């Protein structure tokens, strides 16, 4: 068995990469997968906070790379799930402390004993992004239904293609179904029109996400959270399950289609 390395990236900051990484890691571990999450955002680490593991950090990614500790020592075990680990980023250094080759080597060291290695990429298109991308088997692009986030996602997809990775998959995060229904927010269809890659999940805007991040308890553990349910569904799709994307169906429901047709017809006349 060898782990699949998944890099979660976006280009734009603040779209939910870290939340997605923490939740997918949690959701995968919850269904019995052996998971390691790596925070590749050297200098601006966050993943430890979102996963609620900040107070357990002793060593970090740069310590491993520079030989101050063994890989095993930098792996922090999750509080709740026994097969979930997190490797924190260094807070005191910058992206140049790590090279793409370092990341490939660390991912390869982790492959034999795990099922999934999730890498939380920093925002941007520079060194940090290249580090995170280098070992990826699967690239997940997180974006929000807003023009600037989609623009950056498009740029990242282009750069992923240039690295000859497989076509990335898209997570559309922070969708507000109400706004979509009123025609005030980009629909998944509009986003896919531009990006033209496979959609692997739609995560609705959910206040419980913010609360969960602050408390360090990933929302995927919350059975009542819509966002948590969406992340669990994405985890299953990563496992090869062909679950329909519920949120998409809600958006493209018959009533909506009819409304849109009426609107379009009205414009044409």
């Amino acid at each position, binding site marked *: 068995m060898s782990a699949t390395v998944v890099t979660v990236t976006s280009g734009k900051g603040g779209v939910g990469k870290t939340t997605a990484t923490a939740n997918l890691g949690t959701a995968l571990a919850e269904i019995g997968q052996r998971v390691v999450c790596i925070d590749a955002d050297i200098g601006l680490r966050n993943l430890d906070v979102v996963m609620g593991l900040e107070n357990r950090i002793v060593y970090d990614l740069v310590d491993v790379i520079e030989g101050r500790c063994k890989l095993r020592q930098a792996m922090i075990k999750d509080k709740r799930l026994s097969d979930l680990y997190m490797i924190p980023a260094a807070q005191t250094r910058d992206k140049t402390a790590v090279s793409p080759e370092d990341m490939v080597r660390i991912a390869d060291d982790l492959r034999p004993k795990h099922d999934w290695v999730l890498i939380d990429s920093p925002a941007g298109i520079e060194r940090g992004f290249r580090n995170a991308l280098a070992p990826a088997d699967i690239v997940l692009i997180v974006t929000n239904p807003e023009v600037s986030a989609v*623009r950056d996602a*498009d740029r990242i997809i*282009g*750069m992923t293609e240039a690295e000859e990775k497989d076509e990335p998959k898209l997570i559309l995060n922070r969708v507000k179904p109400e706004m979509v229904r009123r025609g005030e927010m980009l629909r998944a269809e509009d986003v896919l029109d*531009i990006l*033209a890659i496979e959609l692997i999940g739609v995560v609705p805007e959910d206040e419980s996400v913010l609360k969960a991040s602050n408390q360090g308890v990933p929302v995927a553990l919350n059975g009542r959270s819509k966002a948590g349910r969406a992340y669990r569904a994405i985890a299953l799709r990563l496992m090869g399950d062909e679950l329909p994307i519920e949120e998409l169906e809600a958006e493209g429901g018959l009533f909506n289609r009819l409304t849109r047709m009426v609107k379009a017809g009205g414009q044409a006349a």
Partner: protein
Amino acid sequence: MSIPLTMKGIGDGLLVTVPEGTWSVVRPSLLQAIDERSNFFRGAYVALQMADRSLSAAELSRLRDELGEREIALTAILTTSEQTRVAGADLGLALEAPRSSLDQDSELDPIESDLEGDEAVLLHRTLRSGHTIRHPGHVIVIGDINPGAQVVAGGNVVVWGRVRGVVHAGAAGNTEAVVCALDLAPTQLRIAAQISISPERKGKPRPEMAMLKDGQFVAESWKHN
């Protein structure tokens, strides 16, 4: 041990090079080599490269039948021998490789033309945000030009897809340059030194051609005329 066979895929068939030597020796060894790969050849369309070998219509006809018994269709004979050409033509065989396959060995000459501005670059892909293409000639895109992508061409820009990014045709000052697309809604459109912003679209996208007329942008329906 059979003879090695030199072959390559052409179009939807195979081009097999017939080895040199006396026909009475070559024919059985060719058939033997094919028999040893019978699963591979069964149902195939085959063209034979005969070089300057001279064969009579009878010899060629027999070979065709023998291949036919092996469920192989002989479709073409490539040869420089006049006799073999005539024999092949009599049997209704093609005398050149199927047109669908450009012979990979043959080299194409660089453009031979007296017309100006004929050179174009073809991009068969989607140009994503951050991609920039600059070319002194024409630019042809089969795919979309997404927002944030830029195409700068000395000549025309032709897009079989949607234009959402920035397109500049006639960038070296050619006011005759045009921009065509199936769906023309660029962030910004430039021809020569003129700059324009797409008007708000009404109704369905349709193929359009944008150009300058008396220094003003006009977009016409892009159709055969």
